[in-house]
Structures are given as structure tokens and as C-alpha cells.
């Protein structure tokens, strides 16, 4: 697996992959989990899939295997717009170096039992990207039963609110510290000793303060 970073600056190089990525999200979040209604498009795209989003797409043999989305918390994001009540301990974090991490998935045909190597490779590489970009914390709303996975990685988990029920599922808002140890421990769980993070084409930093003015027409959809 190689994990590609895709954002507004280079998404023109990933038109087909992004389409597969949104189709995979549709299969998982609309068809399987039924978190959202089917709009008939076959792709799951929400109000946070904007130019501000950074995607990480894990690809094996031209197939999307894993994917996720990172959003700056200084912009509208899921916790600020949809679940602010889940952050009742600290309030909604809004800092340039804090990223919201949502829509992380492994497509069903690649799913593994328990805390297997794909999760380690993927989560470790997300940490790697965040370290490169100077992000200090990542997290968001998640099913409560994920908590043991982060603990398994040895990550520092900061729960920022009471668990809440979303469609009959217990969820909790939590952030993780971005550190080299967090990266290395997850990658080790994934049996990886080298980087699988790939960046192609024009580069745009995650933090807006480091971005140059947006190039027009970079966005495909």
C-alpha cells in the first residue's frame, strides 16, 4: 500500500482515484453504515469536502484500499458544525495546528480482524503526514469502541466531552497527540520500517498560515 496525500493543489492528478475514494465512502457510509441518505450519486460527498480538505488515500494495485479526510479546525468541521455538544469539557478546539480526522475507512474486501497491520500502517502514516505538516493534535468524533485501538498504539488520547448517542451508537470526541513515538508505534504495529507516504504534484501545506494564494481552477468538483 502507498498512501497518497491529495488536496486542492494536486487533486487534478487524482481525478479517478478521488472518484473511487468517494464511491468507497458511499459503499461504507451510505450503504453499509447508513449514516447518510442515498442521494443516488453513488458517491458520498458532504459539506466538509471542500478545498480545505486534505485526503489520504491508500492505494494497492490501482485500487483504493483505505482512505480518510483531515480538516483544519479553524474552518467549519464536523465537531464545530454538527456535534459541538460532544465537546463539553473543553469546547470545540479551533487552532491552526489541530486537525479534525474523519471518514477513516478500509474497504470491506481488505478488512482485517482486530488491530491488524493495515490499521497500523494507515494510522501511523496519518501521524507521519501530520508531523511533517506541524500538526500537533488530530481527532474528532468517533465510535467509543475505537478507544482500545489508540491505546494499543500507545497514543495519548484526550477525551474532550461526554459520550453522546448518535443514531443509537455511543460516540465520543477525542484528540490524539501527534508525536514521533505515536507515528513509530503505529507503523511498528503495521510491520512497517519505511515510509509509504506519497506526495505527487504541486504541494500545499496543511496549515493555512503557510499557504500561498489559492491557484484557480485546481478543484475538480
Amino acid at each position: 500500500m502507498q498512501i497518497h496525500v491529495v488536496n486542492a493543489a494536486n487533486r487534478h492528478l487524482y481525478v479517478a482515484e478521488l472518484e473511487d475514494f468517494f464511491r468507497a465512502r458511499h459503499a461504507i457510509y451510505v450503504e453499509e453504515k447508513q449514516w447518510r441518505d442515498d442521494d443516488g450519486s453513488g458517491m458520498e460527498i458532504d459539506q466538509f469536502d471542500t478545498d480545505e480538505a486534505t485526503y489520504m488515500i491508500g492505494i494497492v494495485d490501482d485500487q483504493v484500499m483505505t482512505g480518510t479526510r483531515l480538516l483544519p479546525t479553524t474552518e467549519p468541521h464536523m465537531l464545530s458544525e454538527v456535534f459541538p455538544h460532544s465537546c463539553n469539557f473543553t469546547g470545540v478546539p479551533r487552532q491552526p495546528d489541530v486537525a479534525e480526522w474523519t471518514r477513516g475507512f478500509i474497504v470491506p474486501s481488505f478488512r482485517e480482524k482486530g488491530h491488524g497491520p493495515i490499521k497500523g500502517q494507515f494510522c501511523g502514516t496519518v501521524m507521519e503526514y501530520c508531523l511533517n505538516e506541524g500538526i500537533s493534535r488530530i481527532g474528532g468524533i468517533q465510535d467509543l469502541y475505537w478507544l482500545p485501538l489508540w491505546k494499543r498504539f500507545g497514543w495519548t488520547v484526550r477525551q474532550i466531552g461526554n459520550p453522546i448517542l448518535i443514531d443509537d451508537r455511543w460516540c465520543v470526541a477525542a484528540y490524539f497527540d501527534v508525536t514521533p513515538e505515536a507515528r513509530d508505534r503505529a507503523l511498528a504495529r503495521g510491520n512497517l520500517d519505511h515510509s509509504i507516504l506519497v506526495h505527487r504534484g504541486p504541494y500545499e501545506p496543511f496549515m493555512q498560515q503557510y499557504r500561498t494564494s489559492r491557484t484557480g481552477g485546481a478543484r475538480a468538483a
Partner: protein
Amino acid sequence: MLNAHSELLDFIERAERHPNLSLLVNDFSQVIDRQGFNAFIMTGLPSAGIDVEPMVIANHWPEAWSDRYREQVYFPDDPVSKWSITKDRPFHWREAWDAFPVTKRVQQLNGEAAAFGLVDGIAFPLRTARRWQAVVSLASHRRMDIDKKDEGLLYCAAVYFQMAANDLASKKAPPPPSLSDREQEILKWAAAGKTAWEISTILNISESTTRTHQRHINAKLDTANTTQAVMEAIRQHIIHV
């Protein structure tokens, strides 16, 4: 459930810092007691037909009830354990009772449980890292109406309790006892069906020396006889046959 929030959150904070299982279990037991739960169990859940007993990690049921439950082999009939195996969300015991036909045996089980002070409860099925199913089940001696907010935090506390307990339980397993080369040799011959006399002949030592070795082996492996010692040594990968 006054102060449930800060109490449970404090527990979540310190759960991973307990140096051993019994301190952790005592802490959890006190915390949930103040939330109105007087008893609990944390156990792995076996697939059908396998005994649940060895998978229990922390048992704070009344002892007499545990004995009764074991004697009566209630586990396969218990609606709460049946639901724990299949559910991936917290549930109130009442939900499980409603989900299965009320047989005579279930009536008997629930009646006896109530007599032991397990009137109502809530169960938190959990999937562990190795993906076996486990459950933390809390009991109350009276009917509980749990606020949803508190239920979420109890769930969190149960998740952290389970994580910490599993870590400590796996650390607790002592390293396999070390047997001397001669002791291993004797065990291997015993595993091949040889008697003490035969082994003494093969190894050119006296029969009483052989028996002394076998006594030492039993002491080290905490076994009653040579047959059991062979089984135990194979299980712990001390000898291979």
C-alpha cells in the same frame, strides 16, 4: 447518580496506572458501587460449548451466586450472556430478558439472581484487541433508571477498565518454570510412555533418583502427577513431542 461525571472521568484517567489487577478491580468496584452497582463481572465470552470459567478476568459477583451459576451451568441459558456474545452496544439486562422466551429455567435463574441481590443491571459487550468478545456486566440490587449521559460514561469506564485489566492480566502470566536438562529429558521419556523404572534404566540412574526428579518437576509445574506434568509441560512449550 450525583457526581457520576467527575468520578467516572477520574477513574478513566487513572485506570491505566494501576500496578496490578487486584488494585484496578478494587478501584473499579468502588467507583461503580457509588454509581449504585453493587456487583460486577468482567469476562471473555466463549463460543458455544466452551466453558466460560477460564475466561473470567474479574469476578465480583457474590461468591455463592457464582458457585450456583457454575453448578447449574446457567451460562448457555442466561439471556444476558447470550446477548453479550452477539451485541456490540451496551444494553440493559431487561432488554435481553425481553428478547428471549421466558422459560422455566430463565425464570429460575432470574429469581435466584434477584435473591442474591442481582435485580437489575447493564452490560457492556466489548471487543478486545484480539477480537474475542468480552463483557463487563454491572448489577444492582434494585431497579435502575440510568441517565443516558451516565450510561455513556459508564461505557467509557468499562472500556478503559477492560483495556487496563487485559493488559495487567497478560502481564501477570508468569514466565514458564525452567526445568533442568535432566528434568526435561525425564519428562520427554515420560511423555513417550515410560515408567520411572524404565526411565531410570534408559538414563542409567536409580529409580529413586528418577522419582526425586519427578517430584521436583511436579513442584515446579504445580502438578499432581507425572501425566499431568507432561500435559502442562507441552502446553507451556517446555517440551515438544
